[in-house]
């Protein structure tokens, strides 16, 4: 029969000798199982994520049950902070307003972005790269400055007002432009434009053109074709874009702080306040948890709702 005991001295046989050594069992396990190999490679990243996102969020959750008086923290398990939120209508209104503003921003951004993405995907034949870069570049500049740019534009002495008045079109500066939710929505829609275009573009690019040809061949005009084939197939991109815009916007506080005015404040500002002047960290933590949960709820509802469109078309 076959001799297993004495390994032959072959050039390849000599190599297998070094298998004996440290972590031999680990190496063998890696050889057998792809899962082990994969997770080994993944472990540094996973550990980093767990420590820098998982643990902090968990701690935040825990802290939300504490109380703070001046500079003293009282660890414990009380619902005080959550009760405060539930009792004060103004807080709830703020959260609701934040969600509404974010919703508006999302809808506006995605609606404006879709035709642009469609244009690049379907109408541009050469140099799609150039268009994508053109769209992406402004996004890669400082967010602060972009927000500030809108402040310049919309301000009392800002571009629109001074321009219009120096041309004699208005007598007094328009005051409705700045320091309200309107300003916040415009600014954020502008800020997130590229972020929304890219996922939609990617999903439109992936659509097999012969599917559209087949639809035409079967009798659909351009409008029907769009609603029955293109839109459902690009829904994944639309969903991604919506999530990418909505979620960070809910927590944004820079834009509301710079140009929201008292009516344009969002929950992010209230949270930030707890860590600054109001000095109530546990309450800030509770607000964060409440915001996160609201976001998650809305996102799940959104995903469920769009699932129907994604799988069956309109």
């Amino acid at each position, binding site marked *: 029969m076959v001799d297993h005991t004495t390994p032959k001295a072959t050039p390849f046989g000599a190599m297998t000798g070094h298998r004996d050594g440290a972590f031999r069992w680990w190496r063998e396990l890696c050889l057998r199982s*792809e*899962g082990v190999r*994969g*997770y*080994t*490679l*993944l472990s540094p*990243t996973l550990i*980093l*994520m767990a420590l*820098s*996102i*998982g*643990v*902090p*969020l968990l*701690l935040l959750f825990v802290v939300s049950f504490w109380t703070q008086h001046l500079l003293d923290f009282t660890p414990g398990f009380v619902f005080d902070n959550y009760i405060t939120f539930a009792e004060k209508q103004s807080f709830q209104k703020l959260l609701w307003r934040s969600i509404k503003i974010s919703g508006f921003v999302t809808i506006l951004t995605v609606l*404006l972005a879709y*035709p642009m993405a469609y*244009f690049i995907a379907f*109408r541009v034949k050469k140099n799609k*790269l150039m268009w994508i*870069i*053109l*769209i*992406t*570049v*402004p996004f*890669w*500049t*400082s*967010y*602060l*400055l*972009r927000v*500030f*740019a809108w402040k*310049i*534009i919309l*301000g009392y*002495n800002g*571009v629109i007002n*001074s321009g219009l008045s*120096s041309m004699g079109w208005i007598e007094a500066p328009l005051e409705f432009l700045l320091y309200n939710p309107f300003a916040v929505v415009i600014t954020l829609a*502008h800020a997130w*434009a*590229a972020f929304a275009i890219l996922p939609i573009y990617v999903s439109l690019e992936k659509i097999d053109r012969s599917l559209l040809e087949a639809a035409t061949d079967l009798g659909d005009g*351009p409008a029907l074709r769009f609603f029955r084939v293109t839109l459902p197939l690009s829904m994944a991109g639309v969903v991604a874009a919506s*999530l990418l815009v909505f*979620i*960070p916007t*809910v*927590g*944004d506080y820079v834009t509301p702080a710079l140009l929201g005015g008292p009516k344009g404040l969002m929950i*992010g500002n209230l949270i930030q306040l707890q860590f600054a002047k109001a000095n109530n*960290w546990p309450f800030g*933590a509770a607000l*964060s948890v409440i915001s*996160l949960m609201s*976001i998650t709820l809305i996102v799940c509802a959104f995903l469920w709702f769009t699932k129907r469109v994604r799988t069956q078309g309109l």
Partner: protein
Amino acid sequence: MSARAKEVRFGTLGIYAVTYLAFVYIPVLFLPLFSFNDSTFIAFPLKGFTFQWYIEALESDRLLGSLFNSVKVAVPVAILSTILGTLAAKAVTRYRMPGKTPVVSFIMAPLVVPGIIVGIALLVIATTVGVELSLFTIAIAHLPPCTAFSMWIMISRLEGFDQSLEEASRDLSEGAWMTFWRVTFPLIIPGIVASLLLTFTISFDEFILAFFLSGSEPTLPVYMWSRLRFPAKLPPVLALGSMILISSFVVVYFAEWFRRRGAHVETSSGV
């Protein structure tokens, strides 16, 4: 659809596209515009052309100091997050693993959790553990989103990569590590460069996390935020912002050029 009708279609959509581009660019272009304006007020009409704001910006120690701080944070973050992102991308694209989807979603999570929440969570931890806030804490905070982003880039790069090239190398003579160095790495360099450039940019521009986690040394965005309260000190900030705008443009263009160049190498080989 008739040829005439098609033209019209292009026309409408094309006009929209150009208008949209204008909407995206014009607000941003006001920054350089007013950075050359000879006036401390940011308003029309324009008063005259001057370089003084640029000079003032470049002479300001604090401004340059914060710029340097941002670089001190962004460079290590870019390198480390690209390494981690590439490792993760390789694991995800090459191996069958149970529970892959939830794990990947977990790693991508930093991209969608609002920055302010992450910022305060980290602040809470830092305070509880007793870690002093500094550039180091900012760097730690930047790693998750940058790593997630890097992984996203590298996944799309590696997915289009012919796996049999790596298998050929492993079949011929090399173990996993040398295969990576001799075959995979040379072919994904464009992706790695793109990842380095883009993660650098993300970290460099990042404000919220830096704001919550900076100690005595501010990064550039944090410094800018403090200046925004003083209208008279604004123009130098605009000057700096414009300089950043131009250099970001150059950096991103390079990143894309590199990335696309890599795709050319793969497809032209016909493998």
